[in-house]
Structure formats: structure tokens, C-alpha cells
């Protein structure tokens, strides 16, 4: 069997109309006129004689105060730190790190990770070299909570995706539930990533639904954008927001970053598909620090970019 849209295309008189409508639709989606802007590759972290090779890193976090980059090196079951010029500093290995995925660090120097092997949030007690699973308090026990991606809000609460339940949980650092954002929306498949801006607005991406969701600091949905037919947003896996309020959506299949304004209108594109330095082939995670530097995780490498020449 073979699907064809013959009924429309075979009527020659309608072709110009169909083409015109397609152009309008593409324009409305920002597909026409979206230029690819230049970015500068600041650093590429993959292999180092002291660190060895990164293996399927899952997440990262940049501490602007201490000027340290921390990478959850999932495949090697360790956390690795880098200095402000992204040179290897040290690492923390522990049998409690099964598959570290998400990572955040509070201003008090506390590390929290999510573990893909157990679906838990874990507190990393660096001083005592202990890894303590966080007990979630106040959550309805009927549903199984499986922690996915992790972020910090402006009050340094933990903001985490619940992989099984189409929801985002906001938790105090002791694990007490502050709020569960659980929108009942048609076409929502679940949240693959979450980030929070300085106002406390939450940005989440639904890979299969090909949409970005924006919630305000009360958990109210303020906007969602992206369409299932959008050829630009093919397989969005991660999201980040910069200090100007621009939303960066990492698209795995196209190997590009799509930059939207806060209204969800596409502004421009960054990067292109490829395996060479400065290109993305199978990216999984994006992060933006306070200086608007863009970090991507793509296979076994971390690349850091800055927009412009």
C-alpha cells in the first residue's frame, strides 16, 4: 500500500493554491526567513589524558560563582569538574552513582543528581563522600515517581520532570513537595527536559508531541508552541533559556538549535548537522549559563558555544 495525497495534487488548478497555502503555513511557523546565525566554538570536551574519555554524559551545570563546570559523566558513573577555561579539574566517583543524568548545584554548594538507574533524586554529600536518595514527601503514592531532568528555580527549589506521569514537580531541597505541575492537555506525551528562568518561569519540552511548554511561577500554562507537522522541530529533546528570554530548543534529528522569542516565534537557527567540531550529530542536552554561553552534549562530547563571531 502506498499513501498519496492524489485527490488534491492531481487537480492542476488547485496546485498554485496549495503551494500558496503551504508557503503561508511555513511562513507562519517561521520556517521561511529563519536564518542560521554564526556561533563560535569556545571549547570541546571529549577526551583528556587525565580525565580519560567522557562516556555518554547525561547532564551538566555551570556554577557562575565558583566558575566551575560540572558534568554528569553517566557512562563512567562519575561527576567531573572543569575550570572556567574548561580544563579538567577533578572528579567524584561513587558506587552510589549508577547512571547520573541530571545535575544541579545550589549556592550553598550542595549537589543533587537524578539517577537513570533508579529513577531517584540523590543528594551528593561531598564532604562525607556519601550519596543519599532524596525521600519525596507530600506526593500521592498512587503513581510511581521516576525522576528525569533536573533544574533549580530562583528560590533554589528542585524542579524535576516525572518521566512516567506527564508532570513537573517542584520540591524543596529536603524533598518536600511544593507544587506539581500536571497539565491535562491533549497531545502531551511527557516532558523530556525542564529549565527555569530568573523570573521562575518554567520551560519544558515534549519530544514526541514536538512542543515547548511555558509555565509561570504559579504553575499556570502561559504558552505552548511547535506543531506536530513542523519540519523544523523534528525531534526536540532539550530546552534552555538565556538572560534575554530567548528560548533555545535542541533538535536531535536536524542537529540544530532553534531559537524562539518568548512568544514562541522562531528567531533564528544555530549550528548544523555533522560530527566535526562545531556541529551536532545526535545531541541530547542543552544548557545556557549566566554569560549566555551555550553548552551542548552530543554523544561523548560537550561543546561550548557563544553566539556571534
Amino acid at each position, binding site marked *: *500500500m*502506498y*499513501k*498519496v495525497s*492524489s485527490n488534491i495534487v492531481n487537480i492542476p488548478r488547485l496546485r498554485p493554491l496549495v503551494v500558496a497555502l503551504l508557503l503561508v503555513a511555513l511562513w507562519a511557523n517561521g520556517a521561511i526567513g529563519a536564518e542560521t546565525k554564526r556561533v563560535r566554538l569556545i571549547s570541546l570536551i571529549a577526551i583528556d589524558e587525565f580525565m580519560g574519555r567522557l562516556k555518554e554524559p547525561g547532564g551538566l551545570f555551570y556554577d557562575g560563582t565558583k566558575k566551575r563546570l560540572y558534568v554528569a559523566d553517566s557512562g563512567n558513573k562519575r561527576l567531573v569538574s572543569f575550570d572556567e577555561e574548561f580544563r579538567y579539574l577533578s572528579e567524584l566517583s561513587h558506587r552510589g552513582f549508577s547512571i547520573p543524568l541530571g545535575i544541579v548545584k545550589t549556592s550553598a554548594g550542595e549537589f543533587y543528581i537524578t539517577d537513570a538507574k533508579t529513577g531517584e533524586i540523590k543528594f551528593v554529600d561531598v564532604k562525607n563522600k556519601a550519596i543519599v536518595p532524596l525521600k519525596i514527601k507530600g506526593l500521592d503514592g*498512587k*503513581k510511581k515517581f521516576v525522576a528525569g531532568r533536573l533544574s533549580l528555580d530562583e528560590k533554589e527549589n528542585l524542579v524535576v520532570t516525572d518521566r*512516567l506521569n506527564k508532570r513537573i514537580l517542584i520540591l524543596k531541597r529536603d524533598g518536600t513537595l511544593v507544587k506539581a505541575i500536571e497539565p491535562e492537555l491533549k497531545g502531551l*506525551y511527557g516532558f523530556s527536559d525542564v529549565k527555569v528562568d530568573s523570573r521562575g518561569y518554567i520551560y519544558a519540552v515534549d519530544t514526541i508531541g514536538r512542543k515547548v511548554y511555558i509555565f509561570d511561577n504559579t504553575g499556570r500554562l502561559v504558552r505552548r508552541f511547535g506543531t506536530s507537522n513542523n519540519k523544523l522541530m523534528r525531534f526536540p529533546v532539550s530546552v534552555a533559556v538565556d538572560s534575554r528570554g530567548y528560548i533555545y530548543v535542541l533538535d536531535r534529528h536536524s542537529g540544530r538549535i532553534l531559537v524562539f522569542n518568548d512568544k514562541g516565534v522562531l528567531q533564528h537557527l544555530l549550528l548544523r548537522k555533522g560530527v566535526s567540531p562545531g556541529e551536532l550529530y545526535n545531541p541530547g542536552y542543552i544548557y545556557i549559563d549566566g554569560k549566555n554561553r551555550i553548552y551542548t552534549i552530543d554523544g561523548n562530547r560537550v561543546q561550548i558555544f557563544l553566539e556571534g563571531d
Partner: protein
Amino acid sequence: MRRAGIVTYLIAVVSVVVLCYGTASAAKKDTRKLCADCHKEVAGFFDKKRVHKPVAGGQCTACHNPHASKHKNLIGESRDELCYGCHKKDKLLKGNVVHQPVVEGLCLECHASHSSDKRALLKGAEAELCFGCHKKENIEGKKFVHPEVRKGRCTTCHDPHGSTLEGLIVKNNMCISCHKGGSKTLRTAHSGLNVSGTQCLSCHSPHSSDNRGIIKANVHAPFAEGKCNVCHKQGSKEIVKADYTMCLDCHENSMQSFYKRYSHLMAGKDDNFCADCHTPHASDERALLRDREDKTCWQCHEDTRSFTHSARYIHPDLKKCLDCHVSHGSNARYMLAAGDNTCSMEGCHPSQGRFTHPVGDDAIDPRSREPMNCSTCHNPMGSPEEFILRAGKVMELCIKCHQI
């Protein structure tokens, strides 16, 4: 001079009219006898029960050009265009699901052009024609066979040209046009439950099965044992728990297979993510998959489907997704079953890395700084290049790493 000009003009007009009329009447002219003088087979056309209308009218030239043609058998136009000249395409193709021979204009694969003893000038018995492409043993080779299949009446359910429905099904709720929904017989067969409104094909094969009631080959244990109340409320279609927790009550151990670096652990379409891929009753596929492997995966991986469909070269087993990928989770990228060694798994490509270009830790891709593997040069999901190479085999691929 002026009069001579008018006369010349009139002669020209009359000549054109006569020529056109002559040609038109020639097309309508009964050329049967003329053609049959040489083409002795023409007489045989009339021995059959059904004769194609232009043949019956002796209008051989309606399809054949008596002088010359660029098409075989002196056909006036390409085969499909010729047929669609009289048999309007819009009427034949009732939807956007089109039978592949129709797409390719192969009308004469099923229909005879001159005459036939079968209806619709079919070349043979209905089922025989279908089984020419669709494997007979897959359709009616099982113990219990749907009566219409046994009678060879494929077109009771399928439209051989086009339909709006997958599988070229004639209409929605096809089954209940014969099996009356809510009828006593139907209730009795379903433990007294009114099954109207349910998807018959979620349990039954429409063709044949080794299970009584043409239930699909692989059956969920509680369903096979008649323990409906494991999942459903007593005497009702209503399920006990609406979400995945119902499946986990029995399959808690399956969760471990999801706890990997790369995983399908996600909420999914509805509240029960298990049901996105698996059916709770019966399936002809392994692991009670809802549909064929590729179709199950493409429900979510639409972009991949679109990419592979547009690729010129694809891996021959591309539709067997689970030969290479793990369905729940894997610590290897792309959820591959054996990471970089997936290609040599199960003896598919045993020579992987043993000849030609080296792979592994001793062969680092200078671009990505990662060890090379098969997918450095090949894209198993599809490529415009032969051997599913990522670039042209004459230098283009090599110079991506080897500078000249």
C-alpha cells in the same frame, strides 16, 4: 486576387474539417475484421463471457495505434493513462491509501485488456490474483479461517484500488456489517459482554489463526485463561486501573529494563505508557506488540519514518527495528542492543571490523574524536548513497577524514 484568396481559405478550412471528421470517424469505425485478418487471436476474445466494451464494439484503435507507438503492443498511451481515459481515477481511488499496483499503473496485473470469464475482466479468481503478491500461507494458512477468506472473497473487506482506511479496508466498522454488534450470538461468544464499540482486530485476526475464534497468535495470559477480572471490573469492559500501575502489578520486574541511560520510560499517549506499544489481549506480533514492529515504533518516531521513506537506499531489515534496537532501554546510544557491536550481532555482519577500514579504539574519527564503528561510514536508517554510505563512495566519503 481577393476572390482566389477567399477560395483558398475555404478549401483549407474544409480540408481541416474533413480531416478531423475522418480521423474521428476512423476511431469509431469497427476495425475488428480488418485487424483480425492478421491478428488471429482476436476471434478468441469473443469466446469469453465478458468482453471489454471497446473490443466488443470492434474499436481496436481506441487503445492501439495501427501505425506506430512508443509503447508495447502499439498501445496509444502508457498503460495507466490509457485505462484512466475511460475509467475515471477519482472514482476508482476512494481515498489516499492506494494499492501499490494502482500506484504503479499496473492495471493489467489483475485485469485482462480484451476479455475474461471473470467479473470485472479479472485475469483469474479473486483470491488467486491476490495471492500472486500476498503470501497465501500468511493469510489462510492457519487452522481456523475466516469464511470470506476461505471462499476467496478478499474484496468483501478490501478495496483493490483505493480506500480512506489502512489496509484498503472498504469501510469503518467493517466487522459489524456481518457480525451484528450487540447481538445475542456475539454476546455469548464474549462471556455475555456487549462488545459493540470495541476494536475487533485488537483480539481477532481478520484472516486466519490457529486459535479458536480466529484469536490472534499470541495471547496475554489472563485473557487466555479467561481471567478478565485481573484487569477489568467484574462483568464490565471498564478497567480496574486506568494507568500503567495496572500492568506493573504483574510486570513490576519489567521496570528494571527501562532504568537505563537511554530509555523509553516516558508517559506516552495516554495514562498507560505500556499500552502505547503493547496490546492487552492478543497479537500476531511478538511481545504482544500492537502492530508490526516498524509501525509500532513509527507511531512516535514519525520523523524517522519520514526520513527512511525518502531515502534511496535503506537497510534490508529496516522494518525489523528490534533486531538492532532494544525496546525498553539501553545504556548504548540509539538504544542499540549491543552498542558498537550491533552490526555483528546474531551473525548478521560477522566480518565487521575484520577487513577493510579498521574500527574501534585504534581507529579514532578525527572529526568527532570518537572510536570509529560501522555507523561512522554507513547510515543504517537510510541514505541517498549506495551501501547506505554517508557520502559518495568515490572519494567523497574518504576525504571527510583523509585530507588530500
